[in-house]
């Protein structure tokens, strides 16, 4: 393990020592590292590796469950939000009346950590945001036309949630 291919040790040493000292340091370091290689440390026992694999599997399983729970919560919150939006869109609304965003916990939408930890969630978040912006655009437009399309979007959202639950 003493061959560190990405280091040019001699060149590096010459930046800090004079030529003679660099030569000596290079020789000392290489000899020392060879010495370490002559006394290999024991390898982990098979039982240890198996035990660690089990622990890692359990950790992954727990994390997956948390992610699934989180996804479901987000999906439910989104569906509730859009259902409410649908109701609101049928009445006389203006942009300033829309308070639906507060129903979806901001911490969930805005958390970079959550999104980074779960590709599905990133996909889902993107989809929901897209629908959300479409909804806002529709709400600003003709009420009657928007009422029909909002229902379509709600259906689409439920479909996305169903797809994610399958995965």
């Amino acid at each position, binding site marked *: 393990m003493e061959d560190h291919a990405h280091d040019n040790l001699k060149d590096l040493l010459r930046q800090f020592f004079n030529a003679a000292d660099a030569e000596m340091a290079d020789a*000392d370091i290489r000899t*020392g590292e060879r010495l370490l290689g002559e*006394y290999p440390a024991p390898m982990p026992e098979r039982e240890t*590796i198996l035990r*660690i694999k089990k622990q*890692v599997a359990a950790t992954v399983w727990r*994390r997956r469950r948390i992610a699934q729970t989180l996804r479901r919560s987000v999906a439910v919150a989104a569906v509730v939000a859009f259902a409410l939006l649908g109701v609101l869109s049928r009445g006389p609304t203006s942009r300033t009346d829309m308070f639906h965003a507060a129903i979806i916990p901001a911490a969930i939408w805005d958390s970079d950590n959550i999104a980074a930890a779960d590709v599905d969630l990133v996909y889902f978040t993107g989809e929901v945001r897209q629908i959300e912006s479409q909804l806002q655009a529709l709400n600003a437009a003709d009420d009657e036309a928007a009422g029909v399309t909002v229902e379509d979007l709600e259906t689409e959202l439920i479909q996305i949630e169903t797809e994610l639950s399958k995965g």
Partner: protein
Amino acid sequence: MYAGRCYGYFYRLTGDRDLSDELLSELFIRLVQKMGSYKGGAFESWLFRIALNIFHDYLRGKQRQRKLLDARRTELELESDEPRQSDISGEKLDKLQVHLNRLDSDTRELILLRFYSELSFREIAEMRAEPIGTALSKLHRGLRKLRELMDG
């Protein structure tokens, strides 16, 4: 591959197989937990940074528990005087372990990090937050002293 190198690293730092088992286990669990924070780049650098943190956490835990670190060092020296049956190369291993334990802990950590991580000096210096010249100088002195101890 990584398991063997990390285990060797922990073993040479602690001289204790059971403890190395625990630290290796902790390392892999922490890897799973921190996988989202891996931003690409040298995997070894990320892996051994976590390994180093785990070892430091272990040391801090020991220090908190009524300065057991000193007791551990003494215990390691005592253990090293008696060859362990489970060690694959018997007396040779113990000899290296005894002399590694005679180096100061910072130098020992540097030597072992360099040897087991296979990282470049630049990466090691960055990881340890010290100038590269300092790391080189410490490693040089440490390895020379180790060789003298082994020869003596």
